[in-house]
């Protein structure tokens, strides 16, 4: 009979499950990305180096050296010349090192670029500190102009003994036309 159907408890189930479904959507859009980035930051997985580093300890470990290689990639049809002035350097852990990257806007239009760094191996990510990097900001260049861009880094003296080579790759993106790139809710730049 119709009156045997437990309408109230059905409504309660409906409410609880709807909240659950909405909750999972909120989790996916608002919690999964931050959790993911937090995990990347915490562990260095993914090779995403962090932002501007404040030097605390200036001791240098002269007993070992680390080879640091630099690679560049132009994303998509990014029509700039973009290359490291030196392709590799050797440093002591703890020793600050400055290198330069060359960029030239080869077109007749003013453009803006964003360089995004990535590093391998992952267990070195947290030990690679940048005190100065052109990747911290967007890089505008007017038509036909060129620029030397600085990178100053320190390999942490506590870097695991198993790491002897670090490869740092910069990918150059054309952000001239995109709307502000650090938008809602969780996109972030390597500041």
């Amino acid at each position, binding site marked *: *009979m119709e009156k045997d159907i437990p309408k109230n408890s059905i409504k309660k189930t409906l409410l609880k499950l709807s909240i659950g479904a909405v909750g999972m959507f909120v989790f996916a859009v608002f919690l999964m990305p931050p959790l993911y*980035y937090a995990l990347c930051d915490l562990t260095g997985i993914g090779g995403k180096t962090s932002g501007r580093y404040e030097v605390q300890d200036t001791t240098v470990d002269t007993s070992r050296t680390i080879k640091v290689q630099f690679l560049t990639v132009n994303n998509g049809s990014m029509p700039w010349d973009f290359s490291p002035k030196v392709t590799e350097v050797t440093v002591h852990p703890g020793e600050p090192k400055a290198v330069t990257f060359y960029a030239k806007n080869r077109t007749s239009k003013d453009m803006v670029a964003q360089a995004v760094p990535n590093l391998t191996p992952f267990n070195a990510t947290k030990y690679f500190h940048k005190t100065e990097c052109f990747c911290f900001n967007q890089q505008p260049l007017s038509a036909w102009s060129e620029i030397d861009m600085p990178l100053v880094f320190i390999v942490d003296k506590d870097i695991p003994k198993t790491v002897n080579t670090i490869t740092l790759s910069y990918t150059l993106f054309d952000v001239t036309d995109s709307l502000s790139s650090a938008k809602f809710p969780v996109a972030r730049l390597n500041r």
Partner: protein
Amino acid sequence: MAHGPAKGIGRWLFTTNHKDIGTMYLWFSFAMFLLGGSFAMIIRAELFQPGMQIIRPEFFNQMTTMHGLVMVFGAIMPAFVGLANWMIPLQIGAPDMALPRMNNLSFWILPFAFALLTATLFMEGGAPNFGWTFYAPLSTTYAPPTVNYFIFGVHLMGASSIMGSINIIATVLNMRAPGMTLMKMPMFVWTWLITAFLLIAVMPVLAGAVTMMLMDINFGTSFFNAAGGGDPVLFQHVFWFFGHPEVYIIILPAFGVISHIIPAFSRKPLFGYSSMVYATASIAFLSFIVWAHHMFLVGMPIGGELYFMYATMLIAVPTAAKVFNWISTMFRGSLSFETPMLYAVAFVILFTIGGFTGIMLAVAPADIQYHDTYFVVAHFHYVMVAGAIFSSTAAVYYWLPKWTGKMYNETMGKVQFWIGFIGFNVTFFPQHFIGLAGMPRRYSDYALQFSDWNMVSSIGAFIYGTAQLLFLYNVISTIRSGKPVSEPKTWDGAEGLEWMVATPAPYHTFATPPVIK
């Protein structure tokens, strides 16, 4: 209240009756199965020989993408929702689903969503062409303009699934006949209850993924765009967090159907009922923590590779237990091999083979050679076609007499089974070989050493396609001119409340719930 159905098209547009809605879901899913199947026929026709003979590579990518989307979201999932609608109220002694009007909405969203998705084939830029797994940035920065229709379609299908699942849970938890405790529920109901929770947990995550895609494409965000500080690998994590439970969503109801058919045709109760329930629940729980085995080659750290490998291998354990339970059900039974049982036995064998290749794929170092090759394609077609589709086909033959009051022609059923069984294996077994030999998936063309097995596979596909047309013929001719049957219990070994109501099942059943002892 006990008047019969309304007349004309209005009956179908406005029905709140679970049997009508179940019927619509089943017919819709079969139509989608034939649509997705024709995309597959185009793919296999093109791959019959090396070289581009029939279509261009751009269109080929649209075919593979649409084949996956239509089959997963339009054919398999609605087929089992249709079975759920028809059978769950009957099996628990309820008069209908808990939320009948929402049930109607859940169904009618689907034809609209798929009309939209299919229409993209005719739009400028073509249909979605980035694979049913739509990885960014191919599906964001490099997508055709129809990607927005794709996203809308996915949202609609997701909403339909979520509403359907809420309905199933509300029905099962609140409307079981008095005396039917959870551990007395039929297995099909158990598997659907668990599946419905999985759906509510992960369909919104898929909605989240496509929403983030939508924002990246249209509103300048950078969830998955490295230029803005985003990450394409994040897309893969979010997608597969949905994607892996999704494949268990597809297979668990199929397990439920088999757990009805094997006992019926063995004339013996299901072996290990409680173990089967616990195994199903364990599989569902484990399905949440293994997703990155789809991402072994993305550049995961070694700890991640090892963890996901170990966890994935663990899922094989409860699944194996289920297979042993089915075989033990048959053991010392009194077996007969009508069409539903042929399908069920084929399911156990072929799904197990798919499970074996799954174990091989779980081994992360070996996956270096298997990932994104035809070995993976073979694996998932074994579990999804010989698993889920064979199970839903078995369910149709099994329950068709109850639904229609007509018996199908047993010889035609067996013929249809054997043609399909042979066609399926000729299509997909060789795909293991070409995958191991080095042919990647989603390839519109291939090197010459893959020609021979590809030709064999394509021939098998045409045979398998023919078997599906024969299935359609069998169903229609049964409905129109099958031998009338009226005993409540069509199959002498069958158990369950659905076999206590009249045949064909009256429009309204269990207006008064039965008492379960």
